[in-house]
């Protein structure tokens, strides 16, 4: 399995039956393909849909039906359409249970940057800030390092921050961190990944769950 699909599958395991879920662009979009069959979740798209379904085949594309990434989608039975103000009222008001978002950077406290790049004109923010601020639970899915091999989990953000709100869970190709008041907690290693590798590729300090320490000792 493609590593991005691995991350998406891991994120999908966090979803619970009945959850209202908003999926960001990139890896988060792939989560839709991995939702466990024994639960029913409802996909919210901030451009005004509750109940997003799979992508249509080319013969069934409806130009009036796209997701927040402007890609054609379908809807499931019991779906509804609403305007943008109502859609973001849902988000800001805490009615979206889980948002799964992509990131550029995550800091040691679990705050993220995912909307602007230093040195480039800042011309797009979209719904990134709304989703991060309003969702009951925020899961970040990302490659652990950039294309250049730099850690995306950093001591301090060098990219503009998206919100003062910290995320709840960070899922990368190497590990899973939960975010608590005292910072990041490494709670899981990806298959065949060592604690040492995660430590080497993570700039920010993090706590290590007992289960990992024990597990790692066994693996060594």
């Amino acid at each position: 399995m493609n590593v991005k699909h691995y991350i998406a599958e891991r994120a999908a395991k966090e979803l619970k039956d009945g959850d209202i879920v908003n999926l960001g662009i990139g890896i988060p979009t792939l989560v839709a393909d991995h939702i466990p069959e024994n639960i029913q979740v409802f996909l919210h798209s901030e451009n005004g849909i509750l109940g997003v379904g799979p992508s249509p085949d080319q013969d069934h594309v409806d130009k009036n039906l796209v997701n927040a990434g402007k890609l054609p989608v379908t809807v499931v039975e019991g779906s509804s359409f609403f305007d943008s103000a109502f859609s973001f009222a849902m988000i800001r008001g805490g009615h979206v249970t889980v948002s799964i978002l992509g990131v550029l950077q995550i800091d040691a406290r679990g705050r993220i940057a995912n909307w602007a790049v230093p040195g480039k004109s800042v011309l797009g923010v979209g719904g990134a800030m709304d989703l991060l601020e309003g969702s009951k639970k925020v899961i970040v899915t990302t490659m652990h390092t950039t294309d250049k091999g730099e850690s995306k989990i950093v001591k301090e953000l060098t990219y503009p921050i998206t919100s003062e709100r910290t995320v709840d869970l960070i899922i990368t190709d190497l590990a899973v961190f939960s975010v608590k008041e005292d910072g990041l907690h490494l709670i899981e290693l990806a298959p065949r990944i060592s604690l040492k590798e995660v430590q080497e590729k993570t700039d920010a300090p993090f706590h290590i769950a007992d289960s990992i320490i024990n597990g790692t000792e066994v693996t060594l």
Partner: protein
Amino acid sequence: MRKLISCEEAVKKIKSSSRIMVGGFGLVGCPLSLVDALADSEVKDLEIISNNLGEPGRGLGVLVRQKRVKKAIGSYFTSNPEVVKAFQDKELEVELVPQGTMSEAIRAGGAGLGGFYTPVSVGTKIAENKEERILNGKKYVFQEPIKADFALIKAKKADTLGNLIYNKSARNFNPMMATAADVVIAEVDEIVESGQISSEEIVTPHLYVDFIVLSGGK
């Protein structure tokens, strides 16, 4: 039907330097016939309030290419590289508003409110020049209402009175924009007799709609 006019008649009402809301999330729900008619007109120095500025040479992107847009207020312009270039060349002024704050600010404009406090963007670059306030222990920023001289919106269907319904995710910003401009022009795919749209289903009651044009209609 007294509100029905042609796209040409519609855009003749718009003067240079107007502040215009344009519906749509990208090209979806954008009143493309009205935008094209605007591109064929002589108006310039427009201030456009829209989530995006179309694509290169499509939708509002046409007006950008023609250098008719002086200022844009919206949430996501990065998807049109010509907007980025016009901004860098200082031909285009940009005001970036988070998408939810923007849709709420337009609603507030139409609802006669003086502004509201939102938690979104607190502590970010976007909020640098905005008033911050703690309410019940939580930080918020103040957002002013957004209004305009004109709203160009897209609906699926109008009845002869001007009641509107929309089409799936093409609804997006259109219903709020219908409430927040001095003159509201709705582009529709179809016009039906009054009474043909259920009273329970109407999204934009006719009192908000000044003029109607047919999509593709000249």
